[in-house]
């Protein structure tokens, strides 16, 4: 009965570490990374995870129930299950799921997430050949890594410039909407004097740069990563120019200060209160209920070197380790076919990545204008380290905005910290 303490501890350690390591190797890289669909009918069960893309939960469920019914009619041996997860904690859920070998077979991802999960994903090219004929080029690019499509585009949105007509009326500049950075800067003091912000800037470090800083970087003609992805490129003169532009806005008091550091509930912001002239970080759908439909004007993205904005693409991705890969691939292709995409997009207030499915919103002029900007969008470079880089860059941008560093210094420091990650 007298087992020495030491032995007990060693035994525990051995058992535990053994369990841990076998478990860790669970995420191996077996299986083809560009699977080819089989000719015959697929079979087996498929689990898909998605998120409240359609706000109305019942409507969202109904949409997928109908799709499943239709799909099962063609593939009677496939059992599809769609789970709608909360946005909150979605990376935790998915990451632990994959790590434990219990993730979904198909999952809704945005371009920002794709590189991070790429190792666990199978390319979908061969499954969606029937759909890609009229897929927008930028939508296809936004889901492609090394030439392979890691997600099947399902819906698409654009963040161009949206202006508040009432604010322009209030300062006697009706209809004089800005097209360039200079235009915006010229208007800024006039708005300030009348109690308006010329624009807004969400600078909190956990807000994605995709919608805040990167559009400016692209507009200036810069990019986040170098061509080959081995180093960052945001510290270029274009990048510094973009940061100087936002810093000038912040220092001039032309944007709401709280937004630079925190993320309040939207209706609490000056943006929602209509005390703002233009924004590239909210869509018309976000602001119309606050500004009034009649005041919400959709315009092309601002221009410095070029006019370009951020475009989100919601895609369905296929897990490499899906138990019934073929069934999952076929379901994915079915769920992202242009007709389904159009219906889903409309219910969600989005657009489709397919050029055949335009005019979703009939006579709605705002939505038509928004749809027209889809081609002038990008979702940026897909880089495996894009999130780490964002995590490094965002606080440096913030430091410049609150006057702690010069834009040059901030960019230099960020690049110095980010480059070793890429190497």
């Amino acid at each position: 009965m007298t087992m020495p303490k030491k032995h007990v501890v060693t035994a525990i350690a051995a058992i535990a570490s053994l369990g841990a390591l076998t478990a860790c190797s669970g995420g191996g890289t077996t299986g083809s990374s560009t699977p080819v669909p089989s000719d015959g009918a697929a079979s087996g069960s498929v689990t898909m995870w998605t998120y409240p893309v359609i706000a109305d939960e019942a409507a969202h469920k109904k949409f997928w129930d109908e799709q499943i019914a239709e799909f099962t009619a063609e593939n009677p041996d496939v059992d599809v299950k769609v789970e709608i997860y909360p946005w909150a904690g979605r990376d935790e859920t998915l990451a632990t799921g994959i790590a434990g070998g219990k993730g979904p077979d198909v999952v809704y991802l945005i371009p920002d997430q794709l590189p991070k999960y790429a190792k666990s994903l199978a390319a979908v090219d061969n499954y969606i050949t029937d759909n890609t004929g009229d897929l927008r080029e930028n939508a296809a690019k936004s889901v492609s890594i090394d030439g392979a499509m890691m997600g099947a585009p399902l819906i698409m949105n654009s963040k161009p410039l949206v202006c508040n007509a009432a604010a322009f009326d209030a300062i006697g500049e009706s209809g004089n909407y800005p097209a360039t950075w200079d235009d915006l800067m010229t208007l800024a003091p006039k708005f300030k004097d009348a109690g308006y912000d010329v624009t807004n800037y969400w600078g909190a470090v956990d807000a994605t740069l995709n919608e805040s800083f990167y559009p400016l970087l692209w507009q200036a003609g810069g990019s986040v990563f170098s061509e080959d992805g081995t180093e960052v490129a945001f510290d270029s003169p274009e990048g510094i120019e973009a940061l100087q532009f936002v810093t000038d806005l912040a220092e001039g008091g032309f944007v709401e200060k709280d937004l630079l550091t925190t993320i309040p509930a939207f209706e609490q912001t000056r943006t929602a209160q209509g005390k703002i002239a233009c924004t590239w970080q909210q869509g018309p759908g976000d602001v119309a209920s606050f500004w009034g439909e009649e005041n919400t004007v959709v315009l092309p993205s601002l221009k410095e070197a070029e006019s370009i904005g951020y475009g989100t693409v919601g895609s369905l991705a296929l897990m490499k380790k899906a138990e019934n890969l073929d069934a999952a691939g076929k379901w994915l292709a079915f769920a992202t076919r242009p007709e389904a995409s159009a219906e889903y997009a409309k219910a969600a207030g989005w657009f489709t990545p397919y050029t055949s499915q335009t005019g979703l919103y009939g006579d709605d002029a705002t939505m038509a204008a928004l749809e027209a900007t889809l081609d002038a969008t990008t979702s940026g470079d897909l880089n495996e380290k894009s999130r780490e880089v964002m995590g490094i860059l965002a606080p440096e941008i913030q430091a410049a905005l609150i006057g702690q560093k010069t834009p040059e210094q901030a960019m230099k420091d960020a690049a110095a910290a980010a480059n070793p990650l890429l190497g």
Partner: protein
Amino acid sequence: MTTLATPGTPGHPGTAAGTTSPTDLTPTVRRKRSKNSGMDLTLRGKIVRYVVLSLAAVVTIFPFYAMVVLSLKPAAAIQFPQSLIPTNLGFAAYERVLGAGNIWTWFGNTLIYSVVSVVLVLAFSAMAGYAFAKKKFPGREAMFWSFLAMVMVPYHVTLIPTFILMAQVGGLDTYWGLILPTLANAQAVFLMRQFIMDMPDELFEAAKLDGASEWRIFTRIVLPLCKPILATLGTFVFLWHWNDFLWPLIMGQGTDHWTLTVGIASLQQQDVPLNMILAGATISFVPIFAAYLVAQRYFQEGVTMSGIKG
């Protein structure tokens, strides 16, 4: 011991009772007179105390008040202080949160998660506490202290290994998979040990001499004596499970196994108006608050003794 021995420290003139020397009084007299000793507050002292306490209470309650009032307001910009005046109230936000179909399933799951965990944690920790307190066995100390050290391991480090383990043994999407890992509760074992250690050994010796089995001694003597600590510990474990979010979220792969916290989060769009966030918060807070009002004493003792908050 200077203050005790030296009457009337220089620079600190005596208080009301300072004129009498302590040696003049027998303990009895002193106790009798203690009602009027220098420790009792003057009227001014009492007023000051009420003012300070009330200020502190207002500061403490303010966020709760704001939560409830703002959750009842329409989704609009908050103007301080006008928005805190309880006018124009409505239940729109609550209707949206509660209108979801699964809310009762989630409520049931939360109850199962909380109640089953409470019962099992109490059972296992009482048994282990008894063993650690009153039985000598090899490896006892090592075992006990390694339990405690585990409290200091950051949660996010163990989360994934634990999940992987549960996934491999098929615990996902099951009640047992949700509950089992949360039963290893070091604080509970620790508290039970402390409590049982103070029980006199003679109690058990006597029962043993009467021929009672160990199990009988445990269930008939130890457990009944542990009632107060079981109650406090139980409320604490309940509270923790009730508020838990991340673990139920990753373990319940499907809406059927979600708890209230996860379910309410799933109803929220990315841009949720503040009133809906607060309505959701209020909804999950109300049962806890009701329980708190009913079992205040246990709540206070439970959280106090266990050392972490839920």
